[in-house]
């Protein structure tokens, strides 16, 4: 019957909808069939001046037909209401009830209402109304679809008397639809958004979530954001994680409004929802307490304190402590000033770094912690130079200048100004701390990078606060200096020993350079470092206050020429042109270099593929490779299941690999992914591999593929 009706109407370009007047509403008919009845209804029988009440647009659809939610999904259009209210009257936003989610062939998902919908709006009348009744009129327009879609619209009105008191009206209807309005998130919920490449990730922990068998996220994307279908990444107990693919949007989109819809079955009558406000993390006093961010800021602070114990910073810190020891007898005010200057140096560096990151992010660069620094060989080289100079300084090759006597020397270049010296010491300590931050602050920073500029800044300030906390404390309570050992000759030995720690750091940096620029590159870089050492030695030997002006001038000239020439020749020439080490040279025989094409080809051929995303400077990667991936059992298992092993080398920050890492939501390496087959979801392993976990997954993946 229906079908023949369609056939009759097929290819008719004209589209007719006729409205028949009804006592209280209008109906949309199409080819003689009534599709939608529209009417305005109030929750009161009279308007009381100044007292808000609710009007609902009730749409009743023919069986099988539906109208749409505020976000209609992959097709359709939301219903619109335009009010023509008398002067002084105000209408609130539409309160959209929780919609139903429909899936159609072709992976088409839409959100709408079947049978009936009541779209409520609060109407606020003015405090004084002259007339005895009022006519409230609105233009409503909608799209109603079954198999086909027909647009509809109606001019509707509602006459209400004005009185000093009103009685509730349409109670059952309004109660029924108010039950379907989304609620605010419960207080004890934690909600976190992060952006990972083209995906938004949203995790929610709420105390009652475990009670519901279905939980879904209905997105409310901003205009012109093309959003894919939200997927549940994981769900356990009261925690659920969603991945929301963004196909096109503003790059800075870091969260999205929407509903968390839950119930015992999808689209059930019992369904309920929580409203997710935009930027659940931002401190706009929204319904979500930002537990997440405070926890991360606390980690940042803790990480900052721990930074003081890292081998890269220890030497600087110990200098500062020696300073304190020597200051122990001095005026409290002086100690306080120097301590504050030191802390200011730390803050200055971290805030500068935060601003740089924010600027890069705003400029559209995808930033990652490791990628931001260690994939750049010049950054690694500069770090190496700083570390070396510092080590030589500690060895006594050139003058060690403690801040008090600081008239010359690396730390005292500011010419005797105590505070300025301390400030630069603070900056230095932090510069040296940077390579040590990744392992300790990785989680906190990874979180911060996906956030708004304010959060990034807050995170770096938290780290700076943590790092400077001990010194500020000592300044405020100089009495505690008593607990530090007395100054003496042992200080010299400790200092020299610190120098060796720095040389160890230098070895690691050279290893990274070797991985980036090959053996040749590392050697050229080492030559440059040698020149730097000679320059430092010259400074210590000839450029001394006791030397004559002539000697000092010659020394300064020679040093400058040495540095300039070696810099230009060794770094600008040799090092720059040193071949970028190809990943192949670092591959064991049975690993092959990763390319997306290679992966696709292997999967096409029906192979399972394991990809190791790694980098030479990544110590966790090295550990996993040595202890798990290259272990006998695991190698055998790979061979046994005929799994192709690909190695994706990110040492030089290959952009193709960066993109893939982002797709998996990782700020950097390591990442281990097993692709069981073309049609199956890849399995992602945690950062720290264990043999048993890997073997188990290889086994299940092999079985799953075999059973197809």
């Amino acid at each position: 019957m229906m079908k023949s009706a369609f056939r009759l109407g097929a290819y008719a370009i004209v589209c007719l909808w006729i409205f028949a007047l009804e006592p209280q509403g209008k109906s949309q008919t199409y080819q003689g069939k009534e599709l939608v009845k529209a009417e305005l209804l109030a929750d009161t029988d009279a308007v009381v001046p100044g007292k808000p009440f609710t009007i609902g647009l009730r749409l009743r659809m023919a069986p099988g037909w539906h109208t749409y939610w505020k976000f209609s999904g992959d097709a359709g259009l939301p219903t619109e209401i335009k009010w023509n209210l008398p002067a002084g009257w105000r209408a609130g936003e539409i309160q959209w009830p929780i919609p139903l989610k429909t899936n159609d062939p072709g992976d088409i998902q839409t959100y709408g209402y079947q049978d009936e919908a009541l779209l409520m709006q609060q109407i606020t009348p003015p405090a004084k109304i002259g007339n005895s009744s009022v006519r409230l009129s609105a233009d409503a327009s909608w799209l109603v679809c079954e198999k086909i879609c027909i647009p509809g619209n109606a001019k509707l009105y509602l006459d209400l008397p004005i009185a000093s008191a009103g009685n509730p009206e349409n109670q059952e209807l309004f109660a029924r639809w108010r039950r379907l309005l989304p609620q605010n998130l419960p207080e004890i919920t934690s909600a976190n958004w992060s952006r990972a490449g083209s995906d938004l990730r949203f995790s929610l922990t709420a105390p009652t979530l475990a009670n519901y068998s279905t939980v879904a996220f209905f997105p409310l994307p901003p205009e012109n954001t093309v959003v894919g279908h939200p997927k549940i990444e994981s769900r356990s107990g009261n925690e659920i994680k969603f991945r929301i693919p963004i196909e096109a949007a503003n790059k800075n989109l870091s969260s999205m409004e929407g509903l968390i819809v839950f119930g015992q079955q999808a689209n059930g009558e019992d369904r309920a929802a929580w409203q997710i406000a935009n930027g659940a993390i931002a401190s706009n006093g929204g319904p979500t307490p930002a537990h997440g961010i405070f926890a991360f800021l606390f980690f940042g602070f803790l990480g900052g304190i721990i930074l003081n114990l890292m081998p890269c910073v220890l030497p600087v810190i110990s200098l500062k402590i020696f300073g304190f020891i020597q200051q122990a007898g001095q005026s409290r005010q002086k100690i306080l000033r120097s301590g504050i200057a030191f802390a200011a140096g730390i803050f200055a560096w971290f805030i500068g770094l935060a601003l740089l990151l924010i600027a890069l992010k705003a400029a559209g660069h995808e930033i990652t912690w490791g990628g931001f620094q260690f994939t750049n060989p010049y950054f690694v080289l500069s770090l190496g130079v700083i570390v070396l100079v510092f080590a030589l300084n500690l060895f006594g090759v050139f003058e060690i200048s403690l801040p008090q006597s600081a008239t010359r020397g690396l730390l005292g270049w500011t010419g005797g100004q105590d505070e300025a010296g301390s400030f630069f010491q603070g900056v230095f300590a932090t510069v040296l701390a940077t390579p040590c931050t990744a392992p300790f602050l990785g989680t906190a920073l990874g979180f911060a990078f996906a956030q708004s500029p304010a959060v990034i800044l807050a995170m770096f300030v938290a780290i700076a606060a943590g790092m400077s906390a001990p010194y500020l404390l000592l300044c405020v309570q100089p009495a505690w200096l008593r607990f530090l050992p007395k100054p003496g000759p042992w200080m010299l030995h400790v200092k020299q020993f610190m120098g060796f720690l720095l040389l160890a750091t230098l070895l690691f940096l050279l290893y990274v350079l070797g991985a980036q620029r090959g053996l040749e590159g590392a050697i050229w870089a080492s030559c440059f470092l040698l020149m730097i050492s000679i320059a430092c030695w010259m400074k210590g030997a000839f450029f001394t206050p006791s030397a004559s002006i002539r000697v000092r001038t010659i020394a300064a000239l020679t040093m400058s020429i040495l540095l300039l020439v070696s810099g230009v020749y060794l770094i600008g020439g040799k090092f720059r042109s040193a071949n970028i080490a190809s990943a192949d040279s670092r591959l064991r025989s049975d690993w092959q270099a990763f390319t997306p094409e290679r992966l696709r080809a292997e999967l096409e051929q029906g192979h399972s593929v394991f990809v190791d995303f790694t980098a030479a400077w990544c110590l966790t990667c090295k550990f996993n490779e040595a202890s798990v991936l290259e272990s006998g059992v695991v190698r055998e298992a790979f061979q046994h299941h005929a799994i192709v092993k690909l190695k994706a080398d990110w040492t030089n920050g290959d952009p193709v690999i960066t993109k893939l890492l982002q797709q998996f939501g990782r700020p950097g390496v390591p990442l281990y992914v097993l692709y069981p087959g073309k049609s199956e979801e890849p399995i992602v392993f945690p950062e720290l591999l264990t043999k048993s976990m890997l073997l188990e997954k290889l086994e299940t993946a092999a079985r799953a593929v075999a059973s197809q």
Partner: protein
Amino acid sequence: MKRKTILTVVTSLVASAVFAFDPPPVGSAAPDFSLTDASGKTHSLSQYKGKTVVLEWFNPECPFVKKHYGSGNMQKLQEEYTSKGIVWLTIDSNAPGAEGNLSPEQAEKITTAWRTHQTALLLDPEGKVGRAYGAKNTPNMVVINPEGKIAYEGAIDSKATPNPADIPNSTNYVKAALDESLAGKPVSNPTTRPYGCSVKYKSS
């Protein structure tokens, strides 16, 4: 060996069903296809390599499609750009029995009646091409550059309504993409949110 062959066939079948729904991202290679038009003539994407190609998903019953044909907007675009050497392929991916599905005769009739100017109206009753492009709406627009890469995908214009009166006040994204593309510039707005009716695919 034989098991492996079967495995490969099965996995690729499953794969084509699973992968098919995601639209290939802008900048990626446009999936090749081969479909027949109303007269039974075969058109494949690869035969138009070296030319800019527009794909337009079509359903003559859909109010959003009617908005652009009833007003003459779509025909005007087709005429303007086919005369500049652009290949314009209109595709009907609606399943037999569903609204908008066209038989070859019906397709012939509608192109005459509506005075359309596309290069060809292609019939995709199995929905394979529609799924390969992740086309979910009518109209859904795709622009493919001469290198065979997707340069634009999304809506025809900026006003998501079925009302023809909105056309003059809206930005036509396809026109913008084609003009930029013809001028050798990158498309400044390469992905937009498509609007319209859903494509009535055959259930798989």
